[in-house]
């Protein structure tokens, strides 16, 4: 980055940085700082688990100490968390469940989902001291500075997590708040104790729906629970089914502008045979079959693909798979990437097994 109006101090700092980099070339100073404290490097954001708090039988809250590069957040935002599971790094998004704390720590709550590689790992194996990769906070699912006169939070399961952040932050400023939360049983309500306490001691009007006793909430029933829902600024977070139903319901009432949703994409990618491959930077989309390596398919479409041995040994053809699923033609092994992953794949031995987005 060029410093246009360089005062002596930054110039000195730049010179010192350059010198430090030369002293440790071809590594960078952070590589050595990491040896002593992995949280010091601002360039490589990480967080250390300092406490693991059980919430329900399948959910835990992790208290994280972020590294020096952490730039802060607003309640309701989320972070992407990189976790090594059996040696392989996976990234997932988790809501921050508290407003900024005086001690600078962050909290996320993870609920183990069936077959969830990352969630099960974090719930069962997190211990104080565990190091996680994190990204800066992001997301628009937050309370406006101008607090709404009437608010509604509609959540299900772990969808309560971003809302908890907002409640912990903004409840004192909210005059009229209704929260409808769905969970299988009373014991499955994450933050159940705290929510009930808030309902008893503050203005929060909490409506718990337990699927096992009340049956699954149908969106049409909402008017019975919250007759003035249409007048309320609403935040919805939960499984895809709830979000879809709520979106169409609000749209039918012509009040979509009063609704805010948070969707964490499901990471289930169904693998098939072949698929549409998009080379984003080259602006080319092709249909690749299940037997043709992406390298060959790309070349046939006239793209200048990086290549090497064409037999899977030299890594000369490696490109990031932004999103999609590919099959290793040597052994049929599937590699899946979800948005934000950028998994590097060997294009010479990988065929499309679904829609793929390649970074080239």
């Amino acid at each position, binding site marked *: 980055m060029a410093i246009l109006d360089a005062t002596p101090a930054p110039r000195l700092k730049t010179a010192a940085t350059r010198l430090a980099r030369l002293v440790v070339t071809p590594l960078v100073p952070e590589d050595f700082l990491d040896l002593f404290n992995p949280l010091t490097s601002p360039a490589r954001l990480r967080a250390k688990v300092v406490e693991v708090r059980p919430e329900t039988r399948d959910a835990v809250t992790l208290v994280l100490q972020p590294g020096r590069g952490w730039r802060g957040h607003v309640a309701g935002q989320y972070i992407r968390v990189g976790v090594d599971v059996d040696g392989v790094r996976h990234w997932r998004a988790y809501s921050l469940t508290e407003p900024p704390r005086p001690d600078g720590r962050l909290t996320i709550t993870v609920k183990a989902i069936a077959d969830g590689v990352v969630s099960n790992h974090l719930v069962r194996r997190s211990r104080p001291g565990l190091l996680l990769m994190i990204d800066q906070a992001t997301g628009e699912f937050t309370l406006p500075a101008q607090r709404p006169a009437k608010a509604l939070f509609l959540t299900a399961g772990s969808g309560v997590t971003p809302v908890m952040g907002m409640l912990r932050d903004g409840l004192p400023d909210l005059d009229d708040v209704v929260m409808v939360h769905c969970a299988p049983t009373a014991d499955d309500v994450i933050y159940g104790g705290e929510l009930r306490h808030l309902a008893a001691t503050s203005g929060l009007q909490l409506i718990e729906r337990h699927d096992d006793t009340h049956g699954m909430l149908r969106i049409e029933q909402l008017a019975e629970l919250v007759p003035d829902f249409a007048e309320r600024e609403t935040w919805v977070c939960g499984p895809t089914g709830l979000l879809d139903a709520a979106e169409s319901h609000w749209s039918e009432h012509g009040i979509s502008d009063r609704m805010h949703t948070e969707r964490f994409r499901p990471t289930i990618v169904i693998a098939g045979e072949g698929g549409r491959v998009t080379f984003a930077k080259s602006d080319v989309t092709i249909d690749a079959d299940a037997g043709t390596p992406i390298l060959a398919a790309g070349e046939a479409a006239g793209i200048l693909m990086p290549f*090497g041995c064409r037999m899977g040994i030299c890594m000369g053809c490696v490109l990031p798979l932004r999103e999609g699923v590919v099959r290793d033609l040597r052994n049929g092994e599937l590699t899946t990437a979800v948005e934000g992953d950028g998994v*590097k794949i060997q294009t010479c031995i990988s065929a499309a097994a679904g829609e793929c987005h390649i970074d080239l």
Partner: protein
Amino acid sequence: MTAIQRQAVSPVAHLSAEDIETLGHELDAIREQIVGSRGERDAAYIRKVIETQRRLELASRAVLLVSLFPPAWLAGTVGLSIAKILENMEIGHNVMHGQWDWMRDPAIHSSTWEWDNATPSDAWKHSHNQVHHKYTNVLGKDNDLGYGIMRVDEDQRWSKFYLGQPLYNFLNACLFEYGIAAYDLEIGKVLKGRGDKVEFKEKAKGALRKIKKQATRDYLLHPLLSGPSFLPTLAANATANLARNLWTHSVIMCGHFPKGVETFTRASIVDETRGEWYLRQMLGAGNISGRNALHMMTGNLSFQIEHHLYPDLPSNRYKEIAPKVQEIFERYGLNYVTGSFPKQLGSAWATVFRLALPNNGIAGLVKTERPARPEPEAKPALAA
């Protein structure tokens, strides 16, 4: 060595085409077993090696700040030499092979790694991963057979130039990292007027930039930081680089030049099958036997055969698959070349000395006319 296609009795004459394909499937199965069991233990291994290497380098360089004291000089130099060897061998070489790409950690990935060696990683990955590992020991294709400055196979044509090859080899060993950089730039090709000059200039600039940075670090900055120990630190860094060069050169010589390692003709790899490729890797490399410390210091290239069969499998697993690979060699009646470090190194040097002369020895020198080169057979496939 003589290309197996030109030997009176080919070492693979007893194998049918079906045998070779079955052999390939067996080797694939070993690969799958490792791929399926890669995990936390392996990730912890490479992270530990990287961390240890960095701690050792840091400690050695710190000790060298007072290298005016001879014990500090000695300890620092030994430590730095080991750190540099680990960095090049068990870490750099293997990471750039993509052995750890499966971890999806951008910090330990073939596409991002840069090593403490004169040659930039991109250039090295091309000449090593793509050319050497694909065309292993194919005469005229794999430039690692003598690096273009030596004759290491009877089938490479002799000229007077090669009389000096023991000396070239020694000099190359001392300056190995620069030798590799020059080799990766294909300087020989450019000198002969072949090759893309523009591309060469671009690549040469990259290499020179890197060399400049490294030389500044080792021969200027660290000595300056050492103040009154300027000269001893400079000498220590030079010694560590020399030790690393000599060691890596020796290890690599043991991989392909000792007695018993086979070479192949260009024609033999036309339409090569996966089984035939595996077979060529089996015959085209040699191991070094020894203890764990030796394996670590060679970057597990002491398992050169296993490395050539599976260049992208994590190096810490080669030792585990070696007995299975050796069993396959035995069952298929093939020669698993291995021996102690002195034995293999001696054998490789013997080749360098022997082939400095024409194939018929001193007698050939008297009459320097080139002996007629045997014509390769029409379809000298690996299978007889």
